[in-house]
């Protein structure tokens, strides 16, 4: 059950860099979600962890041991593919047992004919049969064991793929968008099943998805990627409440965070056509242009005249130009800063109140 360490991991295909300088430390037994839009390099990252593609530069460590050159099977991982990747010519039983048979593979089984005999013998071994039966029971596949993948539905195939990954008791589980081919109902059901499985086995999970709902509900830690570069890493709450940059703010949350261009003024920020929203302790000099971010659910209507809002400043990360403010609790601000769709339901005169701390964030433009 290793901790994962990425130290400046990069991957290039020819001259195009897909992952650049990926550095992260994932403690043991985390449910890590690699999140990002399509083509951001998250599947490539997962394949590098699995050892299916080479790492161009940098080191990948499992519990402090460098694994860059190890073959996939030497890394003791399980991989669930987006497209399931079942062996179509084998029955469900043989599919699930395949990793176990491979554990017993010896060189002389290369000889044609020997393999078939060996396979039949190994399938009958009590140890193999018991493991397959056990996992089939958990995944509710027992009645389907003698069928072939093509006769199964999408959800059943997904469960076979999971069962095949689980049967060998690996130390890291890698899942590549395993739910993206399922319908909405099955997806939420499988989401629960995977979460339960995570609780039960207590191993490190790395889960790739572009679906922020999956990321927010299942992950204990999220790494958000865009263009092969880490945008932010942290717990779901951190990423939701304190996005490190405008990309994260827009990507996470539905509806996306409102981003409003403002200008820093004395004692707050000036919202165009709406006056000054008080934010105390502004870390950026007055007169600079910044972006104000506010979550829709943090905005509430307030009685007319309640506009004495206060805010506290917060600097988000080490890098200097990144600045943000969180508002103080009970903060009020003029209504003109509400998103357009809210504004239509209020009168011009009624102000809007932001209800919780850290609801309002601003960033240097």
């Amino acid at each position, binding site marked *: 059950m290793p901790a994962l360490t990425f130290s400046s991991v990069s991957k290039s295909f020819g001259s195009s860099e897909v992952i650049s300088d990926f550095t992260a430390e994932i403690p043991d037994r985390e449910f890590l979600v690699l999140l990002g839009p399509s083509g951001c390099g998250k599947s490539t990252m997962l394949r590098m962890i699995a050892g299916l593609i080479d790492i161009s530069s940098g080191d990948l460590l499992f519990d402090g041991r460098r694994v860059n050159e190890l073959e996939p099977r030497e890394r003791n991982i399980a991989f669930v593919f987006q497209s399931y990747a079942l062996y179509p010519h084998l029955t469900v039983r043989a599919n699930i047992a395949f990793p176990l048979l491979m554990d017993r593979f010896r060189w002389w089984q290369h000889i044609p004919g020997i393999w078939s005999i060996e396979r039949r013998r190994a399938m009958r071994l009590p140890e193999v049969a018991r493991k397959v039966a056990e996992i089939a029971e958990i995944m509710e596949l027992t009645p389907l064991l003698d069928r072939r*993948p093509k006769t199964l539905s999408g959800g059943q195939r997904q469960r076979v793929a999971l069962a095949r990954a689980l049967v060998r008791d690996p130390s890291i589980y890698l899942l590549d968008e395993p739910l993206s*081919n399922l319908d909405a109902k099955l997806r939420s059901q499988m989401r629960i099943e995977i979460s339960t499985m995570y609780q039960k086995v207590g191993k490190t999970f790395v889960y790739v998805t572009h679906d922020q709902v999956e990321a927010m509900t299942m992950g204990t830690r999220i790494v958000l990627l865009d263009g092969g570069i880490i945008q932010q890493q942290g717990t779901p709450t951190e990423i939701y409440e304190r996005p490190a940059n405008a990309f994260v703010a827009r990507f996470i949350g539905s509806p996306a965070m409102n981003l409003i261009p403002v200008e820093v003024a004395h004692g707050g920020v000036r919202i165009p056509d709406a006056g000054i929203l008080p934010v105390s302790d502004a870390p950026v000099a007055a007169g600079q242009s910044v972006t104000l971010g506010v979550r829709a659910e943090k905005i509430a209507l307030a009685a007319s005249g309640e506009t004495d809002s206060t805010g506290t400043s917060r600097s988000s990360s080490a890098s200097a130009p990144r600045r943000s403010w969180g508002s103080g609790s009970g903060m009020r601000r003029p209504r003109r800063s509400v998103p357009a769709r809210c504004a239509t339901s209020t009168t011009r005169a009624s102000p809007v109140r932001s209800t919780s701390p850290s609801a309002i964030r601003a960033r240097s433009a």
Partner: protein
Amino acid sequence: MLIVLAGFPIYWMYDTAITPRDQLFTGQPLIPDVTRTPQIFDVFTSGVPLLQWLANSSIVAFCTTFLSLLLAVLAGYGLSRYRFHGRGVVGFILFATQMLPEALLIVPLYALFAGLGLLNGLVGLVLADTAFVMPVAVWIVKSAMDSIPYEIEEAARVDGCPRFVILLRIMLPLSAPSIAAAAVIMFFDAWNEYLFASTFIQDRDKWTASVGLSSFIGEFITPLSTVFSAAIVFTIPAIVFFLLVQRHIVSGLTAGSVKG
């Protein structure tokens, strides 16, 4: 129309085979007289070593098929899955061999085989046939393997499957329909091959059936009924081979492995 065009020689062969010689040139009825049977047994008793020729043809065809498939599976897998410098060139050269007509190759091959002592033997014939038909098989196998999803192979690697076992136990069964189709093409090509066989083999008892068949055509007399009866015998093993293999030519074997 195409079926008629393709089927007419078969009809002609059968019709000629069952018609007595004296009636052949007097204008035959369009509908064959099915009460007569081809004089197949006459062929065997007519003093020519037809069985020997058929055996030679079988040996050549089976060996060519086996050898070219063996090479084609390895080459096709390599071309399909490994990225190496000159991959495109190798593919092109394989195609380029098909641009040259057999007749053009026969002189240099003859010289080469003469030097190697491979003339007048079935081994040389098998090698020549294999060299000529293998590129087609490589392309068939390569495109079949191209269509197998990458993930299946990756899954096998994660499961701890060595490369060669992946080829043998995963890729091979999944491309079986195309390999069977390639086998039919290879077999028929080698079975029907005439030019190499007639040039390289001198001994009468080492002839293949196609050469033997043509030897019936004499300078002054051609026993048409016998020739066509022999031709029927000649087609039977090929048909049997096809029937044996064709049940493997079913599509949709990869169905169900990936998203459906």
